[in-house]
């Protein structure tokens, strides 16, 4: 264990801090809405150009092309969290599809998709869940039938985040109905403007439509969109899911929220006293800080194991469960600390932080459910992490 920074790294840290500070004015603000807002794209381009994101992705695919260096990655993530400067783009395309393609994509797929995705010019949605296939994802029924060089797809997806804004979908379809449920699935990429796709927004508890239902009627897509091999989609999906769960529990994103919470509690006063000076609130804040530190340290451990190509084990399996819960708790404390003002939402002069704490409190609950529910995470931790006996097999094949 050695966590001290050599002069090279302290210099790097100062360099990153300076870059962020000097260029913070270029970053998009909350008012720059829209996934492809020019300010967001320009900011992303700047960050990639400086090696502050997409750092280790090869130059030929639009990344920065640096050698993997976990300390540098950590320094960058920490500087974003510390400074509160808006972080790089991170959608399902960047966080989940790009790593999957790097691992399993064909050269053409890498060539075609990684660069625009990294630069925020190509938005993706994840077409996995179906009305009857949530936790039991492998029971999915959306059918793809071979026809010459194409597949013809029929079926329905649900809970598809950003499907309305997406240019492309990475989708799981059943290509071999006769095979066992995990063996007949194919992972395939296709454009969302292909004829036969209908997207219907689904309003959620936050009051906006963050996700959608997607209907496929005779959607004809080329076979070249298959990632890895036909009927091996379950393996590909699992590779993606690992990245999703890493993204959902990202400790540096959590740290950034924690920093915001501290600022809020320093700013806000009740009965003439700053919230931070209230011992009860401060104690809860410190309890959360301990967890934030723990998850950050856990993240370092994971990075080290990955780099050494060692198994990550339990440290990795707990990230989604713990990270999402921690985010939810941070938002919960912010609401409690704000007292009766904590319930304000939408607009109004007394609203604090644009109502974002309530939004997060709800959305974070969504993320405790999405991407594998907390209960499924616990099953995985017990069965894969602790080697405990598996849940009884279902009575009927779905």
């Amino acid at each position, binding site marked *: 264990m050695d966590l001290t920074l050599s002069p090279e790294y302290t210099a790097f840290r100062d360099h990153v801090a300076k870059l962020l500070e000097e260029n913070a004015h270029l970053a998009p603000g909350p008012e720059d809405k829209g996934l492809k807002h020019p300010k967001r794209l320009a900011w992303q381009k700047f960050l990639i150009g400086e090696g502050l994101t997409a750092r280790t992705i090869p130059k030929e695919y639009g990344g920065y092309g640096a050698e993997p260096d976990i300390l540098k990655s950590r320094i960058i993530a920490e500087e974003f969290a510390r400074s509160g400067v808006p972080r790089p783009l991170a959608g399902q395309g960047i966080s989940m599809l790009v790593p999957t393609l790097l691992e399993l994509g064909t050269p053409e797929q890498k060539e075609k998709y990684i660069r625009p995705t990294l630069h925020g010019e190509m938005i993706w949605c994840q077409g996995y*869940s179906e009305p*009857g296939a*949530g*936790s*039991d994802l492998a*029971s999915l029924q959306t059918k793809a039938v071979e026809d010459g060089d194409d597949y013809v797809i029929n079926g329905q997806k*649900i*809970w598809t985040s950003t499907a309305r804004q997406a240019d492309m979908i990475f989708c799981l379809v059943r290509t071999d109905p006769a095979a066992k449920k995990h063996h007949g699935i194919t992972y395939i990429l296709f454009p969302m403007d292909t004829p036969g796709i209908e997207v219907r927004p*689904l*309003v*959620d*508890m936050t009051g906006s439509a963050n996700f959608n239902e997607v209907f496929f009627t005779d959607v004809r897509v080329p076979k070249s969109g298959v990632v890895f091999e036909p009927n091996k989609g379950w393996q590909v999906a699992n590779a993606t899911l690992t990245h999703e769960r890493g993204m959902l529990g990202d400790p540096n994103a959590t740290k950034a929220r924690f920093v915001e919470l501290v600022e809020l509690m320093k700013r806000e*006063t*009740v*009965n*003439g006293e700053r919230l931070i000076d209230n011992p*009860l*609130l401060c104690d809860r804040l410190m309890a959360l800080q301990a967890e934030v530190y723990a998850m950050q340290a856990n993240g370092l451990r994971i990075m080290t194991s990955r780099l050494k190509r060692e198994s990550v084990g339990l440290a990795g399996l707990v990230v989604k469960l713990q990270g999402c819960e921690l985010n*939810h708790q941070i938002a*919960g404390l912010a*609401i*409690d600390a*704000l*007292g*009766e*003002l*904590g*319930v*304000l*939402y*939408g*607009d*109004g002069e*007394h*609203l604090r932080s644009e109502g974002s704490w*309530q939004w997060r*409190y*709800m959305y974070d*609950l*969504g993320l*405790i*459910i*999405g991407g594998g*529910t*907390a*209960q499924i995470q*616990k*099953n995985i931790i017990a069965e894969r992490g602790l080697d405990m006996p598996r*849940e009884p097999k*279902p*009575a*009927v*094949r*779905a």
Partner: protein
Amino acid sequence: MEFGLSEDQTLLQETVRRFVAEQAPLDLIRKIAEGDAEAKQTIATGMDELGLNGVVIPEELGGAGLGMLDAVLVQECLGYGIVPSGFLANVVASSTLSSVDTGLAQAIAAGEARFGIALNDLVSRRDGAGLSAENGGLSGTSMMALSAEDATHLLVCDGEGNLHVCAPEDHQVLSTIDRTRVFVELKLSKAKSQMSVTDDRGALARACLLLAADSLGASQAMLDKAVEYAKERKQFGRVIGSFQAVKHLCAEMAAKIEPSRALIWHAAHALDMDEDEAQVMAFLAKAHMSEVATFVARTSTEVYGGMGFTDLVGLHYWFKRIGVNRQLLGSPAQLRQMAAVAQGLAAA
């Protein structure tokens, strides 16, 4: 000794339960959330017909002559159906006023007076906020006033903790997560204090207990829905309710809700009997129920999976009802602190 409801109380409970189930289905609540004034009026009319607003007003003043325990039973039913109503404000006002202003109490019982209450400043006061009583009258602002949007009278508190009755003046509707109920910021400028009462936190205790009862009802509804869904929804070829993980979620909710109901009933009875520890119990009941309800709100949503997060099943209306109740009139920590102070266990 007998801990339980009387026959009349069970009857009252059943009447209100039926009213809520029949007259306030989720469709109607959704309309209210979208601002449909007629839908809201349907409920107010129905409650007037049942004479609910006069529940704690003595019979000789036209009320039902019942107590806080009865009021709590009604509020629990209203919370179960997330029914927006002026019941809580009217009960708090009438129990404070019955002994000092029989005319006003009579007017509430007759449905002629509808109260809004603004007691938040008894618990916490933000910089620049709060009402003060000076020679000229009541001036200032008060956050998160309940049922004040269409009230004929207001029960408010000043900086000294005294309660006043005054006529409504200006207010600003606040946008909160809970669209079914209207909360406002009161703005008064030299409003005439028609009467002032030194009430030593009795009104606050009653309001807290009723909020606790409301969250109790909402929690019970969420648990019932979760259990029902868990028996229908299938994954892995089984109903999800057959997974121990899901069963335990439901069992934990039930295990927390059941004793909370007993606590709330007991606290109501203590207020009715004017027992020494009545206020302490009321504060603790709200503190505890808020924690339980927060747990139930997220846990029942989890049982529903992605469906719970959508607007489709409307579970979020209960989630938000509970979320707002928690923040009203004192967070759990503030109320626990008040309970400690009231018992002389902590310095004020």
